């Protein structure tokens, strides 16, 4: 059922979650938020959020109990703190998402994720226990993957929760018995990877969208990339390229979370591009479109975005674990060097260059017009839980 209280707010012309008054009243008592919220008398005036800096102490009234770090895919790792109450609420939120994906007491689930210091496999294990499932907390270490596949078969695990990169790495080993559920977390899964995983594991993968900072939602069945989110816990908006914040449409995702004492999230940008879709009969939905943000620019004025690079990497045969794009601007032309580390049969460098050139009309145009030269290098690299993407843009040398 659509959330009528939320739509009432929408139609009344004062956008924002119906619980905004309660949330803002709480945050105005928090010294970390009091000042920025002082001037914001309406929801629309709330500034963009950010994580509390590492060296700022948490208020004594909300002691943090457990701390993890972000995976640093957007820069330096940031601290992600939970009070005991936050931890419990996150477990319940995540458990609800896992239940939506069909996990429950009939499953013996292997959790092949890092348990620290990055995002939390631990919280996921506790969510599974909450659903009555049996759990094998396998953690993640590349050399142990063959052993883990054997272990899964020995204990009769019928569900696997891991990242797309790790699941794809496991296709090198015999399938660990018959899986009933394959849940992917931590990074986006391209259609080609989904197809390969379906062929190997015999089950269609489903995604749980959860960043280090917040649980977002569960993928809707038969709609890859579309996620259901819970308006009782979250409020999602997007920042459009024009700079306005809206409740529907395409832009950078901004997350407000109703719970969270140690690290409240208020209009927090996750650096992801999404499309907030019209509410469905089961509640609000969004479509994941990739990482947001500018990656580098080319002399012809072409702006290459991170999402574009990630789509290009997803479509390369083999599995890319690390990618480094080095852009050098010279008077003659821009020089782009693509260094890819991966496993499995990798394509020839010339093929990689051609794929990048053809990844967008703008890039192809810059290349054909002589403004861009591209070179590629490929090498074997160890398996990583999440793909590493580095971009180095040398200063203009005109």
């Amino acid at each position, binding site marked *: 059922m659509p959330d009528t209280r939320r739509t009432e707010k929408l139609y009344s012309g004062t956008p924002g979650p119906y619980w905004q008054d309660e949330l803002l009243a709480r945050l105005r008592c928090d010294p970390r938020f009091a000042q920025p919220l002082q001037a914001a008398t309406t929801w629309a005036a709330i500034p963009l959020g950010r994580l509390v800096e*590492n060296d700022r102490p948490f208020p004594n009234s909300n*002691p*943090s*109990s*457990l*701390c*993890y*770090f972000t995976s640093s895919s957007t820069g330096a*790792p940031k*601290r992600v703190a939970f009070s*005991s109450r936050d931890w419990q609420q996150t477990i319940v939120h995540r458990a609800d998402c896992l239940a939506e994906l069909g996990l429950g*007491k009939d499953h013996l689930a292997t*959790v092949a994720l*890092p*348990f*620290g*210091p990055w995002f939390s*496999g*631990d919280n996921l*294990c506790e969510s*599974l*226990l*909450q*659903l*009555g*499932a*049996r*759990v*094998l*907390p*396998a*953690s*993640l*270490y590349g*050399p*142990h993957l063959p052993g883990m596949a054997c272990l899964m078969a020995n*204990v009769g695990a019928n569900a696997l929760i891991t990242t797309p990169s790790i699941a794809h790495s496991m296709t090198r080993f015999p399938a660990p018995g018959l899986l009933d559920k394959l849940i992917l977390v931590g990074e986006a899964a391209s259609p080609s990877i989904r197809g390969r995983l379906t062929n190997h594991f015999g089950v269609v993968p489903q995604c749980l969208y959860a960043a280090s900072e917040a649980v977002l939602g569960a993928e809707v069945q038969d709609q890859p990339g579309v996620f259901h989110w819970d308006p009782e816990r979250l409020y999602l908006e997007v920042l459009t390229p024009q700079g306005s914040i809206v409740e529907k449409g395409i832009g950078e995702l901004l997350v407000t979370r109703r719970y969270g004492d140690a690290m409240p999230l208020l209009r927090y940008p996750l650096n992801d591009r999404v499309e907030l879709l019209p509410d469905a009969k089961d509640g609000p939905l969004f479509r994941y479109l990739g990482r947001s943000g500018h990656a580098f620019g080319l002399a012809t004025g072409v702006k290459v975005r991170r999402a574009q690079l990630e789509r290009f990497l997803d479509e390369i045969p083999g599995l890319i674990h690390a990618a480094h794009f080095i852009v050098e601007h010279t008077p003659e032309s821009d020089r782009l060097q693509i260094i890819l580390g991966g496993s499995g049969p990798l394509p020839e460098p010339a093929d990689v260059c051609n794929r990048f050139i053809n990844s967008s009309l703008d890039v192809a145009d810059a290349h054909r017009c002589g403004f861009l030269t591209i070179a590629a290098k490929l090498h074997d690299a160890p398996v990583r839980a999440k793909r590493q993407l580095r971009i180095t843009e040398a200063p203009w040398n005109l």
Partner: protein
Amino acid sequence: MLDLTRLMEAAARHPLYAGWDFSQISCFDDAAWRRLPTLTSNHLRETQPPTVHGPELLFYSSGTTGTPKMIGFSPEDLDRVSELCARFARLEGITSHSRVMVLLPMGLWTVGKITVNGHRLAGAEVFPVDLHGGIEAWQRMAGLIRPTVISSTPSVLAAWAPHYQGPRLEIVESTGEPLLDSERHLIEARFGAFVHDAYGLSECVVGTECRVRDGFHYWPDATHVEVLEPDSDRPVADGTTGELVVTSLMQSHLPILRFRTGDRGHINRRPCACGHGMPRVHLEGRIANTLKLPRAVQLDASELAALIGSQVRDGRFRYKSAPGSPAEPFLEGRFRPLLEIRIPADQADKQESVRKNLLMVLPELAELVHEQEIGLHFAIDGEKSPAAGGLA
């Protein structure tokens, strides 16, 4: 914690205890309790767990006694074990001002999970950090976290200690494997903090050291400890050394009753100088017929004990081989096995003659020591030894 009646009810339903007669038992002092058989590591490994329904977390033992064993915990079991770990933390002086970096394996082993949960219950701010990445990664995480407490295994701490760059810590906790004296001194010198060692197995957590560091305090409502003759189920006289046999009052999902630890030790019920009234366990090493040294050399433990005993009264030894999985990949090339021989202070002058005799009578040991494949270290009871460590 569980009471004995509930524990025995759970055990009676489990195939591990088929044929055990609990009918005449109301407390641990009953003769019927002492007539029960004991549970061995092999028996635990070979007995298929019953098919269970409902929530369960599957862990594995570290494989000290052979192939790792699968050990299932219900959420309630984990809560009880975590509560015991919280008692350890409070005894050591962990408070709500403590920032604890837990540098332990977080998956498959219980130790990481219960250490994190225990410190949270004690009120500390906890940062779970897995072992991945080795010393460089640990140092980087310590820079981000700025911990006041680090909890890890002796091998990891001893390997990191010479490279540690950071503020003095308040406490270092070691767990998961034996802590040798030389390792303790090295860790304390380099981290600038008091080391609290804890004793426990994947099957049953036992106790921790107080500031006096005279044995491991244990809580009788959580762990029942008996000392039996190593080759039989007969108890030894109170205060006498034998094999430690433990019963966990924390786990009902996989009940652990009268589990033979393979560790030698004795119980001390005298009040501790720290003021806490709990009894203490004193560990004296593993019960092993042979020590497996590098290059496939096997040393008869009784022969070694006899050689030491022929020259010093009450002399003891402890042997620590290279750390096993999961710490091993991150310590490769940084650790060598260590044979530590303890000599009572009143016979300290015999240290050199013991060394000469050992190397003369055991040429294979002499070769390994000479070629630095193994460290040979002497510790004098009641005296601090130099920070030699088992580092390569």
